[in-house]
């Protein structure tokens, strides 16, 4: 078996203008256990990157490191040239500049596996919360925009429903509208269809497909191999906290080089 060469992104310059998001050598420990063993990634504008791999391979943890929901002990992240403000590398690393992190998070949209809509707000209230509280829009303008977004995800008629009155697929589409309302530069999807009943997966993937077609920059952690293959420009296969292999969908799914990736692809495609 040919050994996969170390990833090509590790010497990418964070100063390249087309590089929206650069992560370099991200390492994350839970106690003694190293869950991420040095992962680097470059997301260029309009690129859709899918992160695949067995559960426990660190896909979601890596994604959560990118907006600092988890703080990696080692490594640096740049969003449009600006490094995320983290204290020096080591055991108890923390956020140095919370205000700057808030601004950066607002530009990194995230969609969760469990939707995480706020149950005490109606769908439309969920969508206008960020624009009003963080972007400082007036309620009127925020509502106008939110209504457009609700239409785009096909839920105009559900604006005044509480999340508990919506199906999983509808909730996830509201969550996507909530994320889009912040007009983020990059969209992070953390297994957006994993909590859905099979018959509801399609409607969410369809919305995501539309977003990819629009030229949105997207990072998608997913188990939906059909989606990853069809929509992604680039696929990263994570294996035991490291990048096992990365390349075009064709390479990963048709001609995987590493044994671990071959095994994984065989398992999930049949």
């Amino acid at each position: 078996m040919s050994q996969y060469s170390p990833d090509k992104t590790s010497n990418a310059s964070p100063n390249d203008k087309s590089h929206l998001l650069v992560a370099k050598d991200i390492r994350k420990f839970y106690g003694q256990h190293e869950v991420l063993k040095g992962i680097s990634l470059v997301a260029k504008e309009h690129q859709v990157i899918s992160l695949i791999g067995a559960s426990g391979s660190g896909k979601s943890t890596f994604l959560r490191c990118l907006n600092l929901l988890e703080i990696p002990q080692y490594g640096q992240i740049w969003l449009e040239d600006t490094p995320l403000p983290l204290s020096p590398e080591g055991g108890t690393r923390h956020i140095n500049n919370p205000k700057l992190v808030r601004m950066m998070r607002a530009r990194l949209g995230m969609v969760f596996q469990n939707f995480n809509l706020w149950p005490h707000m109606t769908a439309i209230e969920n969508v206008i919360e960020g624009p009003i509280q963080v972007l400082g829009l007036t309620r009127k303008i925020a509502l106008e925009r939110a209504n457009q977004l609700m239409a785009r995800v096909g839920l105009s008629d559900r604006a005044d429903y509480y999340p508990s009155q919506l199906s999983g697929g509808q909730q996830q589409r509201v969550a996507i509208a909530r994320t889009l309302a912040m007009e983020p530069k990059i969209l992070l999807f953390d297994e957006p269809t994993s909590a859905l009943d099979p018959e509801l997966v399609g409607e969410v993937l369809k919305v995501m497909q539309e977003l990819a077609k629009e030229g949105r920059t997207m990072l998608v952690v997913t188990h939906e191999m059909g989606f990853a293959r069809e929509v992604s420009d680039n696929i990263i296969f994570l294996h035991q906290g490291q990048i096992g292999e990365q390349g075009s969908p064709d390479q990963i799914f048709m001609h995987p080089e590493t044994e671990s990736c071959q095994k994984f692809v065989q398992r999930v495609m049949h």
Partner: protein
Amino acid sequence: MLQEIEKIFALLGPDGWGGQLWHGTRITIELALASLILGLVAGAGLALAKLSRFKIIKYLADAYTIIIRGTPEFLILLLVYYGSNRAVNYLLSLIGLQFNLEIPQFLAAVLGLAFIYAAYASEVFVGAYRAVAKGQIEAGQVIGLSRWQLFYRIRVPLLWRFALPGLGNLWLSMIKDTSLAAVLAMNDLLRVAKVAGEAENRNLLFFVFTGIIYLLMTAISDYFLRKVERHSRRFMASQTPTKKPKLKKPPKAAANTPTNLMTGEA
């Protein structure tokens, strides 16, 4: 028999002890309400202290709760009453004022009850704070809400649902604990009943009547607590809404309307 009933009505009526019993009831209610408000505010503060990142503040708040929970309520009231008098006069003497200020009984009783309520309420608040799903806070973090916004826009509205049942139980205990204030020579409901019972040599009658009044107060509280609790859960699926929701019934045909490409496969 009829005579006996007439006599009871006379004793409890406005020409008998009715006026004083009513007055005692009002004192009891005022005491409980004032202690509730003070206790809720102090309890919320205490809960924040317990959740503080600063270990010393957390330990102090924990110690306070341990002390209050491990001491009889009766004793706490006595300590607050006599202790606060001493403390206030000592503080006054420090700034050179030598007069014997007496803390009003009402204030001492409210302080004592609020101290007790705060300790228990803080535990309820801490539990409710932690019961709010982490994902809902994260959803706020990733759109860039500040710590304060996360707190008052997401955390607080969501924690009532978990806090109200516990706080309601504490309120019912407090209504009953107000009777301890009788020991501070307050003319609360129980004390009036005792005085009246002794004066008329009808202890049992007045105590039973007083019990009914306490029961009434707790029953009315219970009714409103249920309403408030239901309101705090209004957005949950399992809950039948109190009012008809402003939402229209989901139209059955919605999935088939070709409004746009995302609603269905068609």
